[in-house]
């Protein structure tokens, strides 16, 4: 492939910033889009039923047991099917409703406001901590106010 690429690729003079992908593809023997097939889980999934299920996500992924395992975990952790059911119901209605929306109501401040806010923020933090337990990411920005962050220390 590298050898073939040494052949000059003509770029139309009128649009110098655009590479003609079709002519590039011809030189390489296939269209760029074709060469992506197989590497794209989304493309592979396009022939599958639209409603994702626990198995759909896993099937759409390339063969890699570690990723497949993680996908299963993700499917379980987030209860994707339940969510879709809600979405389906909403589609039937045709309009979103506020029935599903939980709101932290804002009331006029009083003597107990500060305490209430602190309680809510702490509870919310715990909730997020619990929700991130299935995350495949992790970072720590450190104390933004005073201490040097781990990022700064690394330098």
């Amino acid at each position, binding site marked *: 492939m590298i050898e073939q690429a040494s052949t000059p690729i003509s770029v139309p003079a009128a649009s110098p910033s655009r590479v003609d992908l079709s002519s590039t593809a011809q030189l390489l023997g296939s269209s760029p889009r074709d060469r992506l097939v197989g590497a794209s889980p989304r493309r592979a999934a396009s022939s599958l039923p639209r409603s994702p299920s626990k198995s759909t996500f896993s099937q759409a992924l390339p063969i890699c047991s570690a990723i497949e395992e993680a996908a299963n975990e993700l499917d379980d952790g987030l209860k994707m099917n339940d969510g*879709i059911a809600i979405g389906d119901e909403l589609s039937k209605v045709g309009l*979103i409703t506020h029935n*599903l*929306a939980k709101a*932290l109501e804002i009331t006029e401040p009083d003597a107990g406001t500060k305490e209430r*806010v602190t309680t809510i*923020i702490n509870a*919310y933090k715990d909730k997020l901590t619990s929700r*991130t337990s299935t995350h495949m990411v992790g970072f720590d920005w450190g104390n*933004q106010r005073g201490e040097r962050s781990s990022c700064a220390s690394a330098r």
Partner: protein
Amino acid sequence: MIDDERVVCRPRAALVAPRTFFTHARFFAPPLLVIILAQGYPYNLDFDYGPLECLQKFMINNLGDPFIESNYGVHSREFEIGVLNWFAKLWEIEREEFWGYVTNCGTEGNLHGILVGRETLPDGILYSSVETHYSVFKAARMYRMDAVEIDTLESGEMDYAHFRAKLMENQDRPAIVNVNIGTTVRGAVDDLDKVLAILDECGFDESNFYIHCDGALFGMMIPFVKKAPKVSFKKPIGSVSVSGHKFVGAPVPCGVVMTRLRLIKSVSSDVEYLNSRDATIMGSRNGHAPIYLWYTLTMKGYSGIQKDVELCLNNAHRLMEMLEKAGIQTMLNELSSTVVFERPEEEAFVRKWQLACESDIAHVVVMPNISVEKLETFVKELIESRERASKKKREATMLANGNGGHAANGDGTA
């Protein structure tokens, strides 16, 4: 309740706008000169989000519709809807009748409001004044809408006669009107009631007009000012947007847009990947921003915001008086905390106060974090700067005349 608590303005400030100065200034495009007192733009820097620092380590993302929970669990929809409910009360719309979200900025709010307008009236023409924020005409370009610029009055407010004339020229097509609730440079407020009356006079009804109110900064202040035209969904408007980081204040840019639930259907589609509905401009949405807004609104409430508004309007009047006393040409719109004045000549002064300059006028947007002491320092330094600039000019003239000023004094032509 809000009505009763609204601020009673101090006696109307005269529009101190010598015709030659401001009429001349208006012809410069794009918008004139932007000078905002101390540390840049109209942002309320008076905030402390220390108690929220523990949330910094989370990637909070409200992707998709605020009212439909996505599969991504680390979101702040509860806070977002709390904030929206607060604004719904402010703008007088029932919870079951509105839809909205916390945006990434005022521009996103405008892009969304105008998109809803266009989807509701696909053949509509966008009308907005020449002093409108650039994002409104950007929306027209992005959505390939026909747009008509309306002239402004000296105050920066829409020229209603011109608006009427333009509507009459295009009576066969729906009108999508952007109403400025405080223009960027002069803080001028278009009269929503007058706009509605003109639409009616020109034969437009709710089936063929849509109004978006761009509230950026003053959308948060106007509801608390007694004499101001009321922005309310009880009137036939389609959407309202405001910036969150301006008057409320936040460490990240943000805003709020609100529209009618029945209208949002036209821009919505279910997205399998999100397991939510796509009705927003952005996909991923900053989940920290609603928490910041919720925090401040909870701690301050309507009464706290009202106090801030009163403080800003009073301080703006005070600044205008100080500038006038110093002999500096000044203008202050009655409903605004934006004080417009002559552009300072010294670049060093401009840099020190972080001023963005264009053409020959400047403005100061008095925000809650701007104290009287800071205003006094600003005016004092402005006077000193003007004196230095004036002295330099005199010396340059003398040098140009070649004899250190004797000629100037001698022939009287300097």
